[in-house]
């Protein structure tokens, strides 16, 4: 059996890659994909813990996280469409309407 720590390290690595993309990319669609990547990294660690302790609760939680991710994707992509329609751009640098 693969040790729990391997899964946690892998999960941390994927999360860090997601953070890296979130911090360095300017394209709003790719930033959004990086958020999905981070959500998935957390899901992976939850499933790994569920396996380790032999409890189903972690998997139920992952199920709920997936639902929230689906809702977030729907609303977020709608916001991106509205943004693109107003600014004709997908660059977060142009997203300065509420900036002081």
């Amino acid at each position, binding site marked *: 059996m693969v040790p*729990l720590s391997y899964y946690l390290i892998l999960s941390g690595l994927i*999360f860090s890659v997601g953070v890296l993309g979130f911090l360095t990319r300017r394209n709003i669609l790719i930033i959004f994909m990086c958020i999905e990547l981070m959500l998935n990294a957390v899901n992976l660690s939850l499933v790994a813990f*569920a396996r*380790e302790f032999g409890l189903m609760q972690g998997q139920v939680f992952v199920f709920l996280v997936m639902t929230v991710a689906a809702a977030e994707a*729907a*609303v977020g992509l709608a916001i*991106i469409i509205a943004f693109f329609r107003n600014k004709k751009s997908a660059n977060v640098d142009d997203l300065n309407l509420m900036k002081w």
Partner: protein
Amino acid sequence: MELAIFLITAIVLVITAILVVVQRNPVASAMFLIAALCAQAILYLLLQASFLAVIQIIVYAGAIMVLFLFVIMLLNLKKDEFGPEKRRAQRFFGILFAVLLFVEIGALVKLSLTGLPQAYKSLDPEFGGAHAVGQLLFTDYLFPFEVTSVLLLVAIVGAIVMAKRKL
């Protein structure tokens, strides 16, 4: 054997995740994200979460990523609209903080994974199946389950309002 499958899948997962971040074209990014999600579904299978593996493919790699691709197609970005990505300082600090975060997570895992109870060597074969997850979801977690249905309704209404032609 299990370790070999884990290592191969983990390498594929990490490489595709990095490719998601470094691709210039959002469509290529989305494709690699789909590959990463599928690799993760294999890891779920290794962890005896068969129901979640199927849901991962159907809902994540299927529904959510199709939504992504649909929006990318709708925006129809030209090459020059991908935007300038040349920000040296931002890139430097982004890489720095991501590496720091990973080191921190690694240290936490290394330091805190002592004194855990012994792992279950073999589980009930039903563990992680649709029956077991559903049993828990419709008894102990019935209220959160119902709340997610309200959440999805709110998301539908919100998405329609946001994507209206006149905002």
